[in-house]
């Protein structure tokens, strides 16, 4: 509403003179109309002298509108277009004192047009925005407000028209707006949705650190604002290297796209990811940046008695530094466990590990270390572990591997016995004249025979420089007596060559339909062959799941490594026995281990229980079958990742858990015996790599997540941050998308603009004077 007023009210007293004039003139004939015009002119002049004006709801000093235009990646041209529309809308409503200025902002803010009565043209705004040299991968609305607020000349009513999506990545616009003095209303403008990016990479999910030469689990979280699926491409470049393009089908909403990246070279690497939409189109603006710290290759401490291990080979092949340590050497190494990333116990018997080493290992895991335990019945079937410090560390309970006899599957066992000449030697007076080694070998073989059940298959082969089959593989019930008689009749003599005997035993066992197939090789001497001659045979035995327990009698060390390799590679045990009197008990124990192993139940398919990062990219259908495993029971707080159906039970194949600050994983299976098929599977290395990376401790650097600082936050969502824009408008007393009149109107407390009436009165006065003159001159 307009209101009339005058600057000098006293001058209005002159209006009292106007009626006198009118009356005086009106007495003259035909002078009435002239008098009226003259009175009008006089009144007008008095009003002009009094400074007559009309007040209208506009600020006295004029309005100053600053267009704050977001030119960051998440807005692209939408901000400039919205500003151009706003400029056109308010242009017609601007008063003579009103001015319009413009700033552009992204990571910072720049003035592109100082406040002026002539608003900048849209083309000028675009050119100025391009020349501003701002980094579009950030939005600092607070900086824009800080620059805009003092830009308006003193005495003008300032307002900010904010053309932004409100996705601020720096500063705090609300705090900045609240601190403006005097308060400046911030009027957000709605952006044209079609001009905004149709899809954005919200975030790159990446670990802060990754070991060298490992495949880093990088994923891009892409949000598409489109209503239908669209084909796009993600372009990833490391350290400004050659970009790699990954095709992706973006569904409406979120799509997580795996990005292939293998860490190469320790140090910090910069990864840039951008989106190409459509897939063969140009890159959308706003690359996402991630900093990735590549550490040295994981250091794996592999504790095993084996000379070659499938697990160690798989990890080494994947670029990890594998340090093999014998179980009995762990005690000397345990003080330096912090140098290792992960400790792997591979088919280790309790008796081989010094007790002191286990205590150190346990406390290391509790402090954040990582432990993976794998092995067959040799490890998990060793009852000595039950009371050891290792047992509470594991996510599975170690069970007595001795089921009811009636439940036991029959086994197949071949005894391969050295009868060479040296077996007749004796270390003490020998009443039989046969020498104690031969004697105890016979006793041991007979004792083993006594351990077997009637349905077990048993055979025996003696050898010197050539094999002698004492009895073919046959059910114990059918051959026990005959075989025992032949064993008792065994006499020493000849050279030593066990290869052919082993080959026969393997052939016989291979034909046997028993899940547990085992050879006990008993020898005291050096073979006539080279070690390499046995390589193929050992591999065949391992492939056929035929385990070999090698027992070396005597104090000399000949053949030691070959026998260790045979035992280790086939999943059997190796024993070096100086005292021949221990032979029977040793062989009984080995036989019982086989007989009691419930893993001898079935040949089973592995199933996925609870998915986890160690199983990423692996498919259940691709898992090889497991011939034998050790039975364990999952503990309450543990996660069952993989399992094997064993009747009514689900036997853990891979169990994990958090042990205080550390992580422990268990695979109660021997990958060189019961699960040898897995070694040839293409996913074997991936499984182990991912398992090791999962278990590895999180470093302090990882907690700091340096990558987060550099991570692109500009393109975090499709569409504007309306809550912030609404709050910004409400806090500053503004509205979204204001009408020009509302934008330019005087705010409460601001003096309203006075429009002088003089420019309108003076022409009127002139006309009145001329009319008066005309009437008087011409009317005479």
């Amino acid at each position, binding site marked *: 509403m307009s209101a009339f007023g005058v600057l000098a009210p006293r001058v209005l007293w002159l209006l009292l003179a106007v009626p006198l004039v009118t009356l005086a003139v009106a007495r003259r004939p035909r002078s009435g109309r002239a008098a009226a015009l003259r009175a009008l002119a*006089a009144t007008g002049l008095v009003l002009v002298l009094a400074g007559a004006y009309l007040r209208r709801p506009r600020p006295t000093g004029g309005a100053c509108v600053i267009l704050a235009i977001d030119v960051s990646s998440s807005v692209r041209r939408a901000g400039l277009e919205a500003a151009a529309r706003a400029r056109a809308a308010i242009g017609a409503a601007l008063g003579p004192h009103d001015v319009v200025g413009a700033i552009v902002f992204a990571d910072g803010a720049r003035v592109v047009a100082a406040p002026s009565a002539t608003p900048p043209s849209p083309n000028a705004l675009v050119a100025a925005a391009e020349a501003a040299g701002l980094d579009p991968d950030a939005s600092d609305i607070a900086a824009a407000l800080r620059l805009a607020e003092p830009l308006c000349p003193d005495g003008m009513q300032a307002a900010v028209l904010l053309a932004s999506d409100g996705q601020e990545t720096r500063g705090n616009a609300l705090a900045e707006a609240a601190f403006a003095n005097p308060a400046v209303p911030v009027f957000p403008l709605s952006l044209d949705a079609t001009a905004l990016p149709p899809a954005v990479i919200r975030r790159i999910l990446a670990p802060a650190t990754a070991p060298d030469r490992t495949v880093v689990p990088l994923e891009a979280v892409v949000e598409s604002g489109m209503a239908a699926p669209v084909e796009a491409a993600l372009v990833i470049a490391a350290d400004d290297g050659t970009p790699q393009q990954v095709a992706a089908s973006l569904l409406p909403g979120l799509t*997580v796209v795996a990005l292939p990246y293998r860490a190469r070279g320790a140090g910090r690497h910069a990864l840039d990811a951008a989106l190409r939409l459509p897939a063969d189109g140009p890159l959308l603006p706003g690359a996402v940046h991630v900093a990735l710290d590549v550490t040295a290759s994981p250091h794996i401490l592999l504790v095993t008695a084996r000379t070659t291990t499938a697990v160690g080979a798989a990890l080494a092949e994947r670029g990890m530094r594998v340090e093999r340590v014998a179980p009995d050497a762990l005690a000397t190494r345990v003080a330096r466990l912090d140098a290792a990333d992960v400790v792997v116990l591979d088919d280790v018997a309790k008796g081989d590990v010094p007790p002191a080493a286990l205590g150190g290992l346990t406390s290391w895991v509790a402090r954040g270390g990582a432990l993976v335990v794998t092995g067959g019945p040799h490890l998990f079937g060793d009852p000595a572990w039950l009371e050891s410090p290792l047992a509470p560390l594991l996510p599975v309970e170690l069970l007595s591997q001795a089921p009811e006899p009636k439940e036991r599957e029959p086994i197949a066992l071949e005894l391969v016995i050295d009868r060479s000449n040296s077996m007749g030697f004796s270390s003490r007076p020998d009443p039989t004249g046969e020498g104690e080694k031969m004697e105890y070998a016979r006793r041991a073989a007979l004792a083993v025979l006594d351990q077997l059940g009637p349905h077990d298959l048993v055979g025996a082969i003696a050898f010197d420089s050539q094999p002698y089959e004492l009895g073919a593989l046959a059910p114990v019930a059918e051959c026990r007596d005959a075989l025992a008689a032949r064993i008792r009749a065994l006499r020493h003599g000849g050279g030593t060559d066990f290869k052919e005997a082993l080959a026969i035993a393997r052939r016989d066992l291979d034909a046997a339909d028993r899940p547990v197939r085992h050879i006990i090789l008993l020898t005291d001497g050096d073979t006539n062959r080279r070690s390499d001659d046995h390589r193929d045979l050992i591999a065949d035995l391992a492939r056929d799941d035929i385990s070999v327990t090698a027992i070396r009698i005597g104090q000399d060390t000949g053949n030691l490594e070959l026998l260790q390799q045979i035992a280790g590679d086939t999943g059997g045990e190796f024993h070096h026995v100086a005292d021949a009197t221990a032979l029977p008990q040793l062989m009984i124990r080995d036989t019982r281990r086989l007989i009691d192993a419930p893993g001898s139940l079935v040949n089973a398919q592995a199933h996925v229980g609870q998915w986890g990062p160690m199983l990423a990219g692996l498919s259940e259908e691709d898992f090889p079958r497991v011939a034998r495993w050790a039975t364990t029971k999952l503990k309450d707080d543990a996660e069952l990742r993989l399992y094997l159906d064993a009747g009514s039970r689900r036997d853990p194949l891979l169990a994990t858990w958090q042990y205080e600050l550390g992580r422990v994983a268990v695979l109660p299976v021997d990958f060189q015996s019961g699960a040898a098929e897995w070694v040839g599977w293409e996913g074997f290395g991936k499984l182990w790599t991912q398992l090791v990376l999962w278990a590895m401790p999180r470093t302090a650097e*990882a907690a700091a997540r340096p990558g987060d600082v550099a991570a692109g936050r500009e393109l975090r969502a499709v569409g504007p941050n309306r809550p912030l824009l609404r709050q910004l408008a409400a806090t500053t007393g503004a509205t979204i998308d204001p009408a020009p009149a509302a934008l330019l109107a005087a705010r409460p407390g601001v003096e309203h603009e006075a429009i002088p009436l003089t420019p309108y009165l003076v022409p009127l006065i002139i006309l009145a004077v001329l009319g008066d003159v005309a009437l008087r001159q011409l009317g005479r």
Partner: protein
Amino acid sequence: MLGLANPLGLLALASVAVLVALTLLARRARTSVVSSLLLWKQIPARRIERQRFRPDLLFVLRLLLLLALAGGYVRPYLLRPGSGDAGGLAVVLDVSASMQVRETEGRRFDVARRRLDALVAALPADAPVLLVTAADRPRVVQRWTTERAPLAERLASLAPLDTPTALAPAVQLALGEAARRPGARVAVLTDLPPAASGLAPAALAAVDWTAIGRRDDNVAITAVQVEAPPFAAPADVRAEAVVRNFGAGPRTVSVEASLDDTAWVRHAVGLPARSARRVALGVPPGPGVLRVQLGGDDALAVDDQAVAWVPSQPPLDVLVVTESDAFAAAFRALVATTAHGHVEVVNRAGLDERAGVAGLAGVVTVFDRLAPADDEGRGRGAVLYVAPPPGNAVCPSARRVDDASVVDWEPGHPVLAGLAGLEAVEAARATQLVLPQWGAAIVTAASRHAAYPFLVVGEKDGRRRACLAAELPAPPATSDAMPLVLLTLGTLRWLAEPLAELPITVPTGVPVVVPGDAVTAVPGVLAVSDPAVVLAERAGLHRVPTAAGSERLVLANLFDDAESDVGRDGGGAWPASIAPAPEPGDSGRADLSWWFYAAAAALLALEWLAWGLAA
């Protein structure tokens, strides 16, 4: 100098032509019917004379009247003395922290002030001066004035602040003011070279730039961090400082830390040129205000000190409202991981009874799949809504979803401080939250291509509250659930913080929204309310009164590498190459139009009088 503000008003002179025409028309022959021509015949014919234009007094008066009206209409003006060549000077004086650097000739600020005095002294006595200070933001400390005394008084009262520099807005302000005064110049006195100002070349060209400063031997504390895992024992709290040498030569400084003004540790730190080092301070002896101070002389003192807060880590006291034994057990297990945590479980019906028996101030109430609307305004402590049901008014949510995975988060939020591996947070069952007006989504999750808030936190009516979308797994302490457990613990820690007692930690020069009650400004700390925002201009420890009548601590630090990197090349002067673009305006003009209108009024009266007399 005379000018016309409305030259188009000269069109009003056309009225003079009309007047002449009217006068001529009035003198033309007319036919009059009379009863007798006897008397007319005695008058000799003077046809020629009748046609000639002979202005009379009335015509002259009318002409002058119209000329006066037209003269007023063109709005003649005179430029006032001093509004032309004297122009004036708009001065931008840098008062940021780096101006505190002590050079051989004194502080940079004092050097700049002396240069400013000289500039003003060289101006004509009637030249107006505008004084703008530039620190974190521009401030007009003296509007245009020709009086030197108040200007000197203002100048004398100034001192450099402890804030970073934002020179561009101040220069833009000065340029805008100068543009409205023809002939006015802009002078900038700072320790920054023009290229570092962030101004466009066109703006720089219109400015007389004076840069001062040379010293670079500054060592600064650029960060102080107190790592306190959620509900950790005091022995698990660690403090460290980052010390950076900005100088070109190696330095050895002492780093001294004190807690609540009691000396704690002291380290000697060697720093190669332009290098930084983390200094582990160790385990603080207790909660309180940690002050870190660098020993040894350097160019800038304000960044030789820093303050931080060592939290007291009170035990977690939780009231769980649930109908589920499994949830209660899971939460007990969760709280059992904290030192001296206490859990009390009630069902929904028992909540009112429990609240009546003892107050719930200081207790975090956890609602399991409940969000009772009548919980509003009961004066309870902080609240965590776990998997709030769809349709509730407190933590709005759309529906239950399966397999939620975290896809985004706000790394700077205090709830997430120190949490790593958020991308590993997953929940088999969750509630799809909708953002309420009172909160902000600091963690976002996705299920089946739809993203939604996963953790919403905020404050309302002086209470902190949070909505967690995930249903807690049972048992919670599995390796898979560990990220979610840590996120929950982080949320509980934030909720359990005694809001009114928490110090406000701010960087100097940056406005920060204050959680809790608004505070009142004190020297060195500016404050506004609604929303409650503080801005510290001085580093150090400040005690500010709150609207509720209590007192809060404000810990302000200057952690700004650009500001601490005080080394300059000796400075110099860059004179303006162009004048500030002038803008049309009325300043400095004396409007003469009123006098023309007054004359017109007088002439109107005279003409009337003359006409009356003539008649």
